[in-house]
């Protein structure tokens, strides 16, 4: 296996990733600046400003886990099976775990002043915590099997099982009576009673987190490919060393 396309010999950057990284940085910085300047609301005061990052973080986690599941399905299907899908699934899952953990942390920070507790066993919170646990398990599973084929197969099945929790998380606020407010994505409609500035900044937050995710995925995927290559080359070197040792032993026995 050779170096991933467009990737340099000193790092995982390329012209495309630099451009994407700049767009991600600018959009995230703008989201933070505008989010911290949102006007206080009557019900929640300044706490409502967390709307610019909390729902977008959850969205990015959905996207990451969705892509992990899609890549896993493509690996499992014989006609499309290729190592790149396993690599993509692994890279996306790790980033998804980061976004999911941040969703829980920012949600907890928002919940403390508005609900009075850092944590409650609410349907939305519990199903999100379960999603994080499932994908942490997925990442642990990837470290168990040494054989790449077995590892890819087992983790692909695990990803397809784990991703079933995503719609449960998303619709939990509709299916059960919860403390958590309604779906934030449903607020992004012209009929919404959400203030225009809140809608605009939340929408910008969704774009920013999507760009950040895409940029991280590009680099993490290339790291995954480099790790595979290093693993393969390390094995080749070890085999050569063993062959060399065997040749010396045979030569000694013959003389």
């Amino acid at each position: 296996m050779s170096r991933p396309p467009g990737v340099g010999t000193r790092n995982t950057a390329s012209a495309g990733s630099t451009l994407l990284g700049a767009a991600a940085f600018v959009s995230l910085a703008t989201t933070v600046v505008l989010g911290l300047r949102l006007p206080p609301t009557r019900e929640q005061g300044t706490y409502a400003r967390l709307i610019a990052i909390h729902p977008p973080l959850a969205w990015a986690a959905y996207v990451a886990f969705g892509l992990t599941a899609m890549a896993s399905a493509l690996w499992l299907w014989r006609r499309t099976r290729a190592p790149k899908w396993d690599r993509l699934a692994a890279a996306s899952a790790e980033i998804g775990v980061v976004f999911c953990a941040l969703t829980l942390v920012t949600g907890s920070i928002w919940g403390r002043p508005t609900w009075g507790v850092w944590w409650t066993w609410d349907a939305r919170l519990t199903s999100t915590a379960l999603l994080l646990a499932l994908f942490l398990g997925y990442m642990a599973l990837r470290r168990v099997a040494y054989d790449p084929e077995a590892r890819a197969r087992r983790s692909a099945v695990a990803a397809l099982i784990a991703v079933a929790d995503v719609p449960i998380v998303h619709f939990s606020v509709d299916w059960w009576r919860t403390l958590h407010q309604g779906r934030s994505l449903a607020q992004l409609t012209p009929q919404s009673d959400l203030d225009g500035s809140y809608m605009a900044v939340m929408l910008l937050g969704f774009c920013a987190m999507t760009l950040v995710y895409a940029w991280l995925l590009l680099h993490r995927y290339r790291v995954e490919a480099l790790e595979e290559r290093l693993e393969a080359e390390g094995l080749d070197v070890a085999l050569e060393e063993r062959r060399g040792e065997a040749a010396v032993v045979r030569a000694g026995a013959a003389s």
Partner: protein
Amino acid sequence: MSGGYVLAGYGITVGSLGLYAVRVLRRGRVLSRSLPGDVPLAGAGPAPAAADASPAPAPAGDE
């Protein structure tokens, strides 16, 4: 106090994403340097005859 919760939320988010990004970039740099260079730095000129050395940045498609 209300500003503290909001700042903590934003600070933890930006800080964590930044730390994770640095970790991924550093890992990529270490791995890239520990492998023999068969492709020049992106944008530094035409690649050698390697068939998969196109500059397309898309993650899928190196097979």
